């Protein structure tokens, strides 16, 4: 154990300067794909809220397919498959698009749980007092929806950050790929992967603690009397949608 830490600390000055830019790339691809996913999810939800019968089923099917295909398959399809039909994208662009498209399906679900969960009386009341539909959305629906959505959105961001490691397999030079390169140079797999695991943990853990705090705090008024919920996890989102 002591020896393990000794070796780890000995190599830290060598590895640190390489891991830092890789961390930057991880952050960049995470944020870029989260932005893309959120944008796509909003489009999906807007299309769904238009209630055009012709569109509802294709959208539902598309979301279901996106939720049923592994991220790796999507990334390979974009990075290796698209050049076959004449579209060549850089690893970074492929990773961002792949993660963004896959996560849009999850975020659409979060948005629906947040906005769709609202009692329709809220909107009707807002319209009845003379607000335009846009105002009703802006001043009545959205502020309440944000409460329910903030924690699940943060949880999605965390799992997106973790899944960005999959981009290592299509040669995006993020944390995981850099770790593999270092592994094959120094032959210290245990050291480097434990170190990288710690780095991911150091980023993800505070975020998930914060998500848990947010969920407890923002849902406080709603769940008066219910036992305090301790942590935001994916299945709660599923439960919430199931309850609608």
């Amino acid at each position: 154990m002591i020896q393990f830490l000794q070796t780890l600390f000995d190599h830290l000055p060598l590895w640190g300067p390489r891991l830092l830019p890789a961390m930057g790339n991880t952050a960049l691809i995470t944020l870029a794909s989260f932005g893309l996913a959120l944008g796509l999810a909003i489009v999906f939800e807007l299309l769904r809220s238009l209630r055009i019968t012709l569109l509802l089923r294709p959208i539902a099917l598309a979301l279901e397919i996106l939720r049923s295909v592994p991220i790796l398959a999507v990334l390979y399809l974009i990075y290796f498959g698209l050049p076959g039909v004449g579209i060549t994208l850089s690893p970074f662009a492929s990773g961002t698009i792949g993660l963004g498209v896959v996560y849009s399906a999850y975020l659409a679900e979060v948005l629906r749980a947040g906005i769709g969960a609202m009692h329709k009386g809220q909107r009707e009341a807002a319209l009845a007092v003379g607000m335009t539909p846009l105002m009703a959305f802006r001043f009545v629906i959205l502020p309440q929806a944000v409460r329910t959505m903030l924690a699940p959105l943060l949880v999605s961001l965390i799992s997106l950050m973790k899944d960005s490691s999959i981009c290592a397999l299509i040669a995006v030079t993020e944390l995981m790929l850099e770790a593999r390169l270092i592994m094959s140079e120094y032959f210290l797999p245990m050291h480097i992967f434990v170190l990288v695991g710690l780095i991911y943990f150091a980023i993800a853990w505070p975020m998930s603690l914060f998500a848990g705090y947010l969920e407890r705090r923002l849902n406080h008024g709603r769940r008066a009397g219910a036992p305090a919920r301790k942590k935001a996890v994916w299945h709660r989102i599923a439960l919430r949608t199931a309850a609608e």
Partner: protein
Amino acid sequence: MGLGGYITQFLFPLLIAAKVTVQVSLGAFMFAIATGLILATFRYLLPIALIRLPIAVFVEIFRNVPSLTHLFIIYFGLAYVGIRFGSISSAIIALGLIGGATLTDVFRAGFEAVHAGQREAALAVGMTPRLAFREIILPQTWRVTLPPIGNYAVQLVKDTSLVAAIAAPEVMFTARNLVVTTFETSIIYAFAAGVYLLLCLPLSRFAKTLEQRMAIPR
């Protein structure tokens, strides 16, 4: 090459490889259910810091680090310290432990969802805490835990694709090998995605049905 040629040359090997995907999924699923149920039960029956803290540490570590990192630690890292697992067993162990952490949380939420009065009533009629747990609490938790377990199963089948990175001969890995020999990238990866769709769609439909059936009416 026509569609028939594509199917015999690409789809069949992928479907055969799906056997490994299913094998890894089932192995990891059972591992995860056992781990999750045992840890959550311990946590519930023995509410002392000595038990809770290690369980919390386990859960947080496995939930906040990417699956790929755990996979590499178990496959490459443990081999380095002399514990050697094959790629399929590494996959089952890594995914099983990650799933165990997820399901510990799921079961905990399930136990907490049972009204405290149930337990108090059971204790009041003279049941021991353990008996109350087994006969009163546990049977009632399935209603809350089964839907998330279904969602977890879908997630798990998809996550087995990561195992390609440690050369287990499952669908994604086989797809890559086919690509290396034939260069038909788009067709092969589309077929691979199709195989996962074939596995996951019925599973997620089933999970959805469970969710609707088990929903607690308000």
